[in-house]
């Protein structure tokens, strides 16, 4: 009854899935998983840089999704809500793997960032994977996933200003990595 009034749930198929999942209907759960799995796996693979870790985190995330669906209040779209859980799962995995390598390099250069005209997704992907986890998370969440600095700060647990400065550093580092890769 409450779900019908959720403004973000106007897609009848998604609403039906949600109802089914709340009733613990296995087919609905499977359908919801198949709808989002690839997008969420891609995000996790970029965050964790390892297929096995990404698969583990995806599994954890979806189990959490099905357990917590009763708490979904429709304040955001279902996809966005699932993505938040997936990101948290990725962060938790990074923590457990001690993947947060200390950022030894802080680029003190205030020159504007210039991207090479021949930059492609393939090169960018390779460069992203080489970024330290902290920078990689901020770059992925802001530039690829479209979160604001504030939202990223809230998700990761850092100040908005820190998120901004880390994004700048991430871009600077990417620029350098791309230069090496594309030479």
């Amino acid at each position, binding site marked *: 009854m409450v779900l019908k009034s959720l403004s973000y749930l106007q897609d009848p198929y998604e609403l039906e899935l949600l109802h089914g999942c709340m009733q613990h209907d296995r087919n609905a759960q499977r359908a919801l998983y198949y709808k989002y799995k690839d997008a969420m796996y891609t995000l996790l693979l970029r965050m964790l840089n390892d*297929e096995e870790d990404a698969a583990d985190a995806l599994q954890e995330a979806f189990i959490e999704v099905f357990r917590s669906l009763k708490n979904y209040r429709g304040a955001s779209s279902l996809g966005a809500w699932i993505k938040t859980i997936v990101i948290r799962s990725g962060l938790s995995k990074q923590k457990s793997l001690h993947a947060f390598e200390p950022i030894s390099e802080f680029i003190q250069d205030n020159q*504007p960032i210039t991207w090479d005209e021949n930059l492609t997704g393939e090169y960018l992907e390779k460069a992203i994977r080489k970024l330290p986890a902290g920078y990689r998370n901020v770059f992925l969440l802001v530039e690829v996933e479209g979160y604001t600095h504030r939202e990223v700060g809230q998700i990761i647990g850092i100040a908005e200003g820190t998120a901004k400065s880390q994004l700048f550093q991430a871009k600077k580092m990417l620029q350098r990595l791309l230069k090496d890769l594309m030479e």
Partner: protein
Amino acid sequence: MKPNNKQILDQALAQLPQYKAPADIWKSIEQELDKEKGLPHIDRAISQYKADRVQAHLPWEKIEHALENQERLNRAIQSLPVHKLHKDVFENIIEKTQKEKPVRSSPYLYWIAGMAASLLLLLSFLWQNEIPASAEKIHITYREEAIPPTDWQAVYSQLPEEDELMQFIRENCARLAMQCQEPGFRGLLEEYLELHAARQELVNQLQTHREQTQLATYLVRIEKEKTEVGKKLIQHLL
């Protein structure tokens, strides 16, 4: 045309590859969910049990009837008439309360009160003897300030002459001394005099600051208030 810096990044971001989640993840999720399989059945059974009970005791007709009933009551409450209090009710209350005799207290109460007072006296005597007197002496002083009563007759005789109503009051208060002594009348007169003074002040201000149109608005408001208070004063005297 060359793409700008932002466009280059956006294009590259759009070209980022999508990966396929490994096929066996769902099996693991399913296995994990199977462990909790019993729980939904229990949840469903409990909710069903509750629903059955509610349905058995409250068929829809009954609910509908109750809702209609409540609606009818709400409508009736909203259309309840507003009654005015009769003037003599308050007088009756006063009369009755004055006629009522004071309740006689039980003799035991007097006895207990006497005992308590004696005990207090005894304790204070003991306390005074126990505690050595302090070198510091405390003096309690009090002062009464008498406010001389207002000579209302003098006030009435000195009311400004330029105001018609004040003239009326002055003339009538010379004859109807009783009405003019009532506190309600005095309060109104004080208010009237304050409004009169404020009006005078505003008139003076308007003469020097003609461009301040807001002053005229205040003057109109004061005039209105003054008229209202004036009406009440006349009602007292009639």
